[in-house]
């Protein structure tokens, strides 16, 4: 069997060896985090760390509530920003992309360029400009954490744009909408019952990657002095590194599961259509 192999595919052994080694190296830091979070600060007679669930219990202890108050507040703020940013992707970016696809195909390149620009301009550079812009924003809306959604919405653009654009390229929305229109549907039902369902995969992945990016955003929040999940983690790390690491692991695992679930939903939907 293996003698007849041609083309690019690796042998089973090669695949196993490469994925095994890289996988092992990549899992070590995660294991180290879990081990770190289990340390109770004592060593046995051989100098080996004693492990226990002490720090996990600390989090739920009512007596420590004040210690982790800021973290939970930051997490709450991040979730509010998440919701607003997702809303901006769905109500601002998505309609614009569909409109450009249907009515202004010549603007497609311009839109793509605009959405990719935030990759070219690092957040740390944007921050230099956001500081004066936000002194105006603060006068208009106050300096609540949710106002960060405006800035983070920009950071999210390239990530949110790509999955929807890929999906748009594979579906002929012009034909679909004309078919819908000629069968008597209004623009509203063409949009909600024809176009959006066809873009479901792209929209879902762009929403989930948006959530991940927002929860992981640190640079802008830190310079605009807002308390979000990441800035609170950094602060907590100085007073209680164990609990900070616990939350970091949970966040990483949460993001991983989020993306796995979305990958599965997407592929189930696809295989159903092409059995």
């Amino acid at each position, binding site marked *: 069997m293996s003698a007849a192999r041609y*083309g690019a595919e690796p042998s089973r052994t090669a695949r196993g060896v490469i994925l095994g080694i890289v996988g092992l190296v990549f899992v070590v830091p995660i294991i180290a*985090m879990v081990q770190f979070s289990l340390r109770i600060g004592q060593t046995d007679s051989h100098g080996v760390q004693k492990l226990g669930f002490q720090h996990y219990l600390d989090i739920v202890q009512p007596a420590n509530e004040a210690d982790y108050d800021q973290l939970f507040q930051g997490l709450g703020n991040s979730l509010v920003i998440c919701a607003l940013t997702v809303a901006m992707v769905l109500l601002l970016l998505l309609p614009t992309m569909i409109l450009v696809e249907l009515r202004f195909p010549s603007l497609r390149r311009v839109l793509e360029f605009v959405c990719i620009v935030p990759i070219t*301009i*690092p957040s740390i550079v944007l921050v230099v400009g956001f500081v004066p812009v936000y002194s105006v924003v603060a006068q208009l809306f106050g300096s609540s954490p949710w106002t960060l959604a405006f*800035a983070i919405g*920009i950071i999210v653009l390239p*990530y949110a744009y790509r999955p929807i654009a890929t999906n748009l390229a594979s579906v002929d929305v012009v034909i679909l909408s004309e078919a819908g229109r000629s069968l008597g549907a209004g623009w509203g039902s063409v949009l909600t019952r024809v176009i959006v369902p066809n873009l479901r995969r792209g929209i879902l992945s762009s929403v989930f990657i948006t959530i991940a990016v927002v*929860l992981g955003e640190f640079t802008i929040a830190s*310079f605009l002095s807002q308390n979000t999940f990441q800035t609170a983690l950094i602060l907590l790390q100085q007073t209680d590194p164990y609990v900070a690491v616990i939350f970091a692991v949970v966040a990483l695992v949460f993001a991983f599961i989020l993306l796995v679930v979305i*990958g599965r939903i997407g592929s189930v939907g696809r295989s159903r259509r092409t059995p």
Partner: protein
Amino acid sequence: MMTAATTSAPATTMRGAGAPSRRRSLVWLGLTPFAAYVVLFLGVPAVVAVASGFLDASGKPTLRNLAALADPTIQQAFLASFGVSAVTAVLGAVIGALVCFALLGTRPDGMLRTAVDSAASVLAQFGGVMLAFAFIATIGAQGLLSVWLVSTFHLDINADGPFLYSVPGLVIPYTYFQVPLMVLTFMPAMEGLKPTWGEATATLGGTRLSYWTRIAMPILAPAFFGSVVLLFANAFSSYATAAALIDQGGIVPLSIKQQLTSETVVGVSNVAGVLALGMVVVMVALMSLYSLLQRRAARWQR
């Protein structure tokens, strides 16, 4: 750009529209919310960031601030940034390409690929501060790996001071998020290799080696180097991991932080703006190169 759009668009919009002119202006209105948002929160900050480098303390235009680029600590920061970015881009690209190779022939919607893709997205786009924690727990002074290396091999990676908190130490966490980014960006190119090309090579008597050296590698080269450039840009612009590990300056993003949070060290005003300008120039050059390579790569991805 705008006029080109209005003259070429009617062909698609006239069709069946009763009152084209009114309809058209309404449709144009549909683009304004997004356009206004992007101008206010991307255009203005970007221009302000770069332009502030050309203003003196009293707000008058000047070129004197550019003298900051001649400051030895600033130059050192740029060199260190280039160094870390180059090393991690090459390491990330080579390891990431190997992973892509290993994933060829697996079902794209299978469990393995879903897991790898998700893990790659998490580490490449979500990590930041949390990856810094991970490496403190791994190779920090009391890290799992450093303690194990000392007890087993009597090898202390932190012998000359904490390695992780130095600029060369950044190479390790940076590579950790570069490899996943490589997997995400290079996999589509790898999957663009058509099975028919392999079959053609085999029919013509080619070996797997000649397939790789004469067919696959030349086809993949633009995509590979494009990904290297993208990885370089990614490391060059990333801030969170470094900020969580290093308190002082050392690389350009950290110098910007120093300039924004403390008074000037260099002796001219608005050094943050000058540094921002420097970063943008580098990034624009990198991304132009990337899109050039990407265009060559796209020829084979149909």
